[in-house]
């Protein structure tokens, strides 16, 4: 199995994740898209680490996981807070930032 396939898979996963973030309105689904993109990058990191024969790619993948975990905690907390306030988890309802 060629390492290129992993890169292609990573690209596909990233694109699916990005499309999810851009196209879906439900905050939870958007969140899942973000996770998908993060994992796509993780896959790319590991693949390139393997390709170059050093460990730094794998180490960064761990960092990304840690950051992703923290991000999930904060993100879900925000989503719950918004849901409590507005009875909605649609990202398009939360557009007060513009004014």
């Amino acid at each position, binding site marked *: 199995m060629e390492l290129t396939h992993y890169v292609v898979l990573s690209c596909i996963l990233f694109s699916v994740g990005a499309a999810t973030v*851009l196209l879906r309105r439900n905050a939870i689904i958007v969140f899942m898209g973000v996770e998908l993109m993060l994992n796509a990058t993780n896959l790319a990191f590991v693949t390139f680490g393997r390709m170059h024969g050093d460990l730094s790619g794998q180490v960064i993948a761990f960092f990304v996981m840690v950051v992703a975990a923290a991000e999930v905690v904060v993100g879900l907390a925000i989503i719950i807070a918004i849901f409590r306030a507005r009875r909605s988890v649609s990202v*398009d309802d939360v557009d007060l930032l513009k*004014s």
Partner: protein
Amino acid sequence: MPTVTSVAASVAASSAVSNEVPASLELAPYVILLPLVGAAVLLLAGRRSDRWGHWLGLATAIGSFVVGLVLLVGLLGLDAGERVYDMALYDWLPGGTLDVGVGLRIDPLSVTFVLLVTFVGSLIHLYSVAYMEHDDDRRRFFAYLNLFVAAMLVLVLANSYLLLFVGWEGVGLASYLLIGFWYRERKNAVAAKKAFVMNRVGDIGLIVAMMLMLATFGSLDFAVVHEQAPAASLGIVTAIGLMLLLAACGKSAQFPLQAWLGDAMAGPTPVSALIHAATMVTAGVYLVVRSAPIFDVSPDARLVVAIIGAVTLVFGAIIGCAKDDIKKALAASTMSQIGYMILAAGLGPIGYAFAIFHLVTHGFFKAGLFLGAGSVMHGMGDQVDMRRFGGLSRYMKVTFVTFGLGWLAILGIPPFSGFWSKDKIIEAAFVPVEGSEWQAWVFGFTALIGAGITAFYMSRLFFMTFGGKRRWNDGSGDVDGTGPQQGPVQHPHESPLLMTLPMVVLAFGSVFLGGLLAWGDSFVTWLEPVTGHAEHAEPVLPVWSLITLTLLLVVGGVILAWRQYAVADVPVTAPPASALTRAARVDLYQDAVNETVFMRPGQYLTRTLVYSDKEVVDGTWMGGAALLGTVGRVWRKAQNGFVRSYAATILGGLIVIVAVVLALAS
């Protein structure tokens, strides 16, 4: 360029000016202090001094005159060669190489002025007590009058150009305050402002002259400057002379800075008599005569002085012929008479003494004429239009007689005062100057013809006021054709004693002063320590023929005026007239010229500057701000608050960056 040490050495070497003041002259500072204290008390005490303020003003003026007399006696008690003193009072600005001290110059010239200013000033204070009786602001009026007298005395007693400048500005301020004394009327306030601004133009001349003196001589003291003037370069001295002349033109209402004097008549009549006839406007003559050593070095500057004087004397005389306002006609006459003085001063050593002589006699008879005009206005309900007077001799006998004596004096009829002084100026104007004989003929005939025109317009003024038929409404309602019955009802009456007394005293001066001072050339001899001795020079025409010619012209002018304004009926409104008369009625277009040449371009310039400031300077910054605002407004549309749109932007940006990196890498 002389250094300061050499200047000091040369002053010490000069024996003409003594610094050791004899005891008899030590009172000199009190001449100035008395009216100055008077002004300060009257201004600071405010309404509290309303009841006695005018008497205090009068007392300080008289006190100042008495001190002046003491100075005169003190000087007369000394030898003629020892009559020039510099009295140092205190150091004003001690500054190393530049030491400015306050000191008084006591010599025949300054004492002459002190006596003229304080004597005429005292009489006019006395007159004003009655003239301003019904004015609520009489105390303020006397405060300003005192301030004026003090400033004028500083001007004539100063021993340096800087202190002279202090007095120069002081009289300008007092003149401004008094012209605009009835400032609630817009016309008066505008006239005051006009006088002030035109005087500032002249003052620039004095300031520049002082700068040139400082740069050249390192000092502003008369003693140093006059001592060093012959050694300096001719160009610099000529420049100083011309700048001093500019200053004199501004203060003395000489061409081309003459336009303010007519409007200055907006002030109360005693002010016109004291400031705008007898004293302040003659300060220019004083400045030129005082700076005689400078003008003696530069014949060119002196020639310009004489030309300015000759032009103004004709200019003023022509205006005087057409004015119907009695005070403005007198103002035009003042301008013309000062033209005579400036002309005499421009003739050099043969003319200096006569300039001052005419100044003194003019101070008396013109002040008398103005007070007479004030008395007429007082009796006629502040009417100034001479076409509304006529036949007043029966109603105001004292005014008529004193005014008549002043009229004869200004005409130059012997043996009245004006004859002795004006005739000497005409004679001096005819004295040939080596190298340019044309001057004698030009200046001589200008002065001669000026005397004829003077006779005409002063007689016109006199006959229109006191002679002819009544042209005012006496309220009797008779319709037999003795006078018009329209206009305000007038009850002409003689003025109170306080007003007629000064007029009588001045009339005595108009009659006797000239002859008295001319007796044995005593006045000229008295001034010699200052003006220098001038050898008697023969005019191009014999003296007897000049006197005859002058008198013929004067009598001709009087007869002409008598036929036109005493025998014939004078129309109540100004009739249509020739182009020259129309021009003279509007002061020979002096205001129009000033407005076209200076005011309008000035306005355009400021308007252009304001416009360019708005459009270019402000426009640059305001335009930059507007541009940033527009950019901001456009970009703000991107901030729509939708999270997904931000995400799409980020993604788009990322794709662009990746594309650029890939493109660059390949």
